[in-house]
């Protein structure tokens, strides 16, 4: 990260800490939702942006995580244990969902994961004995951690922000390890990766499992945030919305999901001044962004920065041998 990037990151972190003190309850709810959905989008960015595996199932994993926490805490489990269970369950299911990715790719894989999302939705809606069906589950308690109650909107926002910081740091650390390089190789050229000794099967499954686990942990925060979960919240709409966040922010850019989630959560609110037209305006803005900047907002920033540094000399050829291919 260059100096300018570090300054921008520091400023964003300060803003994230200070902003809720100037917001009302609904504003704090919105930025809490941003933090939660950013975690889910980071997971999808890992699966799609880094490892190149198309997934339309991230919303379903948020749902699985949310229902796991809601059911377990109501059964008397402590929140931290329920949170870990949500992540572990989604890791296991994500690993299994990765198997189709070993056989099919691209839009075929998208349809497999889309079918999985529909399957999860149907289970959440129809298995009333477990999920309470269309009536949903209300009143998931916000946790008390080491004597700190996160019951208020402000406290829960800082809890979500802290979890986002932890998840982001863990993902950053993983992407800087040889695994990150392996995920990129999987995306760029799986055939060559295989010939270099990368077990592409394991890395594909791992990309799905970790990405899904992050989705599940986002769900584990979602349930106590909204305090009412029902199947429709975790249908295809949420999966597409998370995909939109990754693409708009910049797929394969670490900070893409942060910016994408900001756009997806806040832009509809900022366009509310148009009253009945706000969703139309939001859709038009997203279409324009995708048409003129398919690599997302961070891709646009990178392009602009490259244009500005174009004067730098290109990489020179092999001088020592006097070659000029």
């Amino acid at each position: 990260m260059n100096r300018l990037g570090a300054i921008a990151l520091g400023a964003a972190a300060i803003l994230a800490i200070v902003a809720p003190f100037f917001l009302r309850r609904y504003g704090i709810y919105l930025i809490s939702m941003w933090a939660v959905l950013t975690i889910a989008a980071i997971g999808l960015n890992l699966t799609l942006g880094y490892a190149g595996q198309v997934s339309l199932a991230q919303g379903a994993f948020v749902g699985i995580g949310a229902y796991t926490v809601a059911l377990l805490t109501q059964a008397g489990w402590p929140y931290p244990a329920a949170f870990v269970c949500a992540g572990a369950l989604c890791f296991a299911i994500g690993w299994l969902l990765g198997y189709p990715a070993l056989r099919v790719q691209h839009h075929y894989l998208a349809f497999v994961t889309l079918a999985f999302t529909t399957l999860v939705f149907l289970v959440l809606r129809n298995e009333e004995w477990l999920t309470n069906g269309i009536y949903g589950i209300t009143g998931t308690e916000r946790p008390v951690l080491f004597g700190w109650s996160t019951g208020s909107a402000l406290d829960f926002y800082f809890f979500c922000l802290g979890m986002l910081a932890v998840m982001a740091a863990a993902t950053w650390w993983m992407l800087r390890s040889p695994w990150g390089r392996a995920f990129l190789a999987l995306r760029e050229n799986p055939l060559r990766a295989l010939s270099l000794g990368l077990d592409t099967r394991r890395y594909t499954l791992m990309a799905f499992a970790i990405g899904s686990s992050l989705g599940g942990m986002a769900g584990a925060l979602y349930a106590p945030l909204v305090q009412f979960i029902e199947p429709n919240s975790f249908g295809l709409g949420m999966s597409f919305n998370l995909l939109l966040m990754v693409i708009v922010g910049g797929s394969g850019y670490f900070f893409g999901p942060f910016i994408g989630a900001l756009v997806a959560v806040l832009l509809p609110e900022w366009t509310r001044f148009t009253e009945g037209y706000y969703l139309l305006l939001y859709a038009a803005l997203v279409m324009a962004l995708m048409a003129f900047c398919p690599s997302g907002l961070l891709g646009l920033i990178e392009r602009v920065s490259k244009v500005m540094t174009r004067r730098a000399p290109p990489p020179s050829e092999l001088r020592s041998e006097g070659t000029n291919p």
Partner: protein
Amino acid sequence: MSAVLEVSNLRKSFGGITAVNDVSFDVREGEILGIIGPNGSGKSTLFNCVLGQLLPNAGEVRVDGKPTTGMRPCDLNRLGVSRTFQLLQVFPQLSVRDNLILAGQEHRGSMLSRLFGKSDAGLGDAARKMIDFFQLSHLADEQAGALSYGQQKLLDAAMAFMAGSRLVLLDEPAGGVNLTMLAHLRERLRAYHAERRATFVVIEHQMEFVMALCTRVLVLAEGRIIAQGAPQDIRRDPAVIEAYLGGQSA
């Protein structure tokens, strides 16, 4: 010298076309074997069968005496077998250094230990040495996609050597490379061979490159071996001249 690679009665068909037909040969330790033949003679299919990219219909492949027929390419790589492809296969978004580290990292520890280990998998020095060896030092931090075609070919070859493989199969390493860079590539391959005593199998159309680099040449035509021997003998072999050079003497 013992055989590093043994191929016995290998056959591969695609529908009604037999691309590789009852091919048998072996490669001895430290040898540089060239495989030549006209387009469509089955060279790349043979490579892909040997390297686990394709499953042969019949025959057997052994590496160091161990049966490897149908083994996955990643498992073969861990046995010490590397390859390059006919078309460039570097990772354009990674730097030259990261391409090389990637090429060696899966040989370092377990998958879990790599997650908790160093970012460069402890290969920083090895990558630097390989970069120096292939004289790419001034490009070490450049994205591979920004390099010229010839430089990418050098990097592609360097990646195949990064894991310290004993057997390296190079599929048209000289393809599309200009004469100056070709001489550089040949000199680097020779130097690597001299230094490490690695065993090479090279598919190539560029006859001068093959004749200057290889210690033995094997000629394929229509999926069969029609000749093998020392480069100077192959030049004079009437069957080779007929099949490969279209009936005109070299």
